[in-house]
């Protein structure tokens, strides 16, 4: 009787303590993260991008697909010949650059989210299985990962897209496949170092099943490096998707994806600088902001660098 009681009391106390500890961790995390000015700036920019993407149809002054037949290649407002109607000018078929850039933010963030979700989930499952079961399962899985990594990422993605057919969805799948081994390797390494820790052994002794051990016991303790890798992959995904678009293998026109816009604009390099410059700046700023956040996350999550 008393036994169960103490146990009950213990549990509530433990829960409270856990909550406290979690809060404290979060606090500590924010403390380190916010100490990094760059990371905060990055976060603000990312927040802004998310806002722009979410409200694109309301923010964009024009329909991103509408062709103004009387305004082909109109320069930005501050150049001679520019107009307030098209603040950043128009492209070769008279579409408003600003509106296309605003809508483009949706694609880039969408690409980042989807690619990271696919490669993270895939990589975690594969890495967990390999690291947990070891033996021949591990050997085969890791060999396959080695093979994927032996090809330069962009080349691999290019060939995969050529197989699947050019397009945004296929480009995302290709990039996810290429990025996935990084997550698998990271997870596997983390699992292997955690697998022999006491808490895992005790969970095992307590009779936890494979699934529970893998996902509930081990995985939460390997999250920090995965989060950092996920932010890095987010920016890589945006860059690679843009590169594929640039090579004509990513999103297809008239999709206002930034890389695709650059590819379409390439023939105007000498004549209309704005169609070339703005999509590039948009890519650079977005990726830079995400990388800033990634740096902040790493500093805050990586105990090794924390106090140096």
């Amino acid at each position, binding site marked *: 009787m008393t036994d169960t009681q103490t146990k009950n009391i213990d549990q509530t106390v433990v829960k409270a303590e856990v909550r406290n500890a979690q809060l404290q961790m979060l606090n500590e995390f924010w403390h380190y993260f916010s100490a990094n000015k760059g990371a905060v700036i990055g976060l603000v920019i990312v927040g802004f991008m998310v806002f722009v993407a979410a409200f694109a149809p309301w923010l964009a002054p024009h329909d991103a697909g509408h062709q103004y037949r009387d305004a082909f290649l109109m320069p930005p407002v501050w150049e001679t010949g520019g107009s307030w109607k098209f603040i950043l000018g128009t492209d070769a078929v008279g579409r408003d650059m600003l509106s296309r850039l605003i809508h483009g933010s949706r694609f880039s963030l969408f690409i980042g989210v989807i690619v990271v979700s696919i490669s993270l989930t895939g990589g975690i499952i594969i890495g967990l299985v390999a690291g947990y079961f070891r033996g021949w399962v591990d050997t085969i899985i890791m060999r396959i990962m080695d*093979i994927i990594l*032996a090809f330069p990422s962009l080349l691999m993605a290019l060939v995969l897209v*050529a*197989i699947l057919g050019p397009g945004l969805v296929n480009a995302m799948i290709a990039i996810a496949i290429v990025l996935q081994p990084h997550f698998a390797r990271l997870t596997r390494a983390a699992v292997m170092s955690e697998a022999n820790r006491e808490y895992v052994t005790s969970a095992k002794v307590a009779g936890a099943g494979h699934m529970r051990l893998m996902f509930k016991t081990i995985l939460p303790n390997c999250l920090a490096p995965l989060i950092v890798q996920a932010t890095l992959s987010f920016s890589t995904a945006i*860059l690679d998707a843009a590169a594929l678009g*640039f090579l004509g293998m990513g999103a297809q026109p008239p999709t206002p994806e930034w890389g695709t816009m650059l590819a379409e604009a390439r023939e105007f390099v000498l004549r209309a600088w704005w169609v070339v410059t703005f999509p*590039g700046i948009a890519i*650079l700023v977005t990726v830079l902001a995400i990388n800033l956040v990634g740096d902040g996350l790493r500093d805050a999550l990586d105990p090794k*660098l924390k106090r140096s």
Partner: protein
Amino acid sequence: MIVPTFFGITIVAFGFVRVLPGDPILALAGERGVKPERYQELLVQFGFDKPIWEQYFTYLVNLFQGDFGTSIATKRPVLDEFLTLFPATVELALCAIVFAVLLGIPAGIISAVKRGSWFDQTTMGIALAGYSMPIFWWGLLLIIFFSGTLGWTPVSGRISLLYYFPQVTGFMLIDSFLSGQSGAFKSAFMHLILPTIVLGTIPLAVIARQTRSAMLEVLGEDYVRTARAKGLGQVQVIGVHALRNALIPVITTIGLQVGVLLAGAILTETIFSWPGIGKWMVDSIFRRDYPSVQGGLVLIALIVMVVNLTVDVLYGLINPRIRHQ
């Protein structure tokens, strides 16, 4: 470990190329088309009519005899094509690495030593921007500015057409120097500047950041503190004690950039019309030149593997900690 990976690579390359949609015979024929009976003949000629496993087996046997197939577009052996273009890519990649190392390591060291200074902050800001750079766009911007507006650098190619000499090494810098023609070396050098910067941007950023964090770690270690306490000068402490140890992870980083460089070469070579394997691969993919894509994939993967292995070995040699174990 290498052997199964190698077989895996050949299977992947072969398999990919088989499932590529599109038809090289039709793409080559263009609007004029090709008669059905002629089409059948061509299928037989290219060996596409055989069962898939037989095609793979033939391919593998040929591979071991150094035969990577014949390009459908040029009708030349794929290996020949690859080898004529490879030096151009190597030259560009080496220049990019040298550029990245020469700028990145000193920048990283100074940043670490003067941690938190304006220099550190600016450098790391630039490094992160470089790391985030869409290099295909960066290349276009540099061309517009340096070649277009200022007219300082040539737009594309490897050397001015005024110079002509036999290719001895395939490396334009060396060949132009050997040729003894005045101005040839300078011309080759000028042609290399923009592509080098574009391809070197990301490695530069990575190396600078890696050097800085490695230095920071080492500077905090006991033996460096001891050296300082012993009253050794700043230069000596950093130059002799800290740097030697900090460079070990940096070298690994440099090795790992090879894959990055080859991927970057695809974009850089496309922008600068650089006659290397990156551009050749893109062209081959677009042309559906199956044998070239297949051979190129295998060769490139092999190179990446060999380089990674070499880096591992080198790492073992220079890292005393690993050697002792």
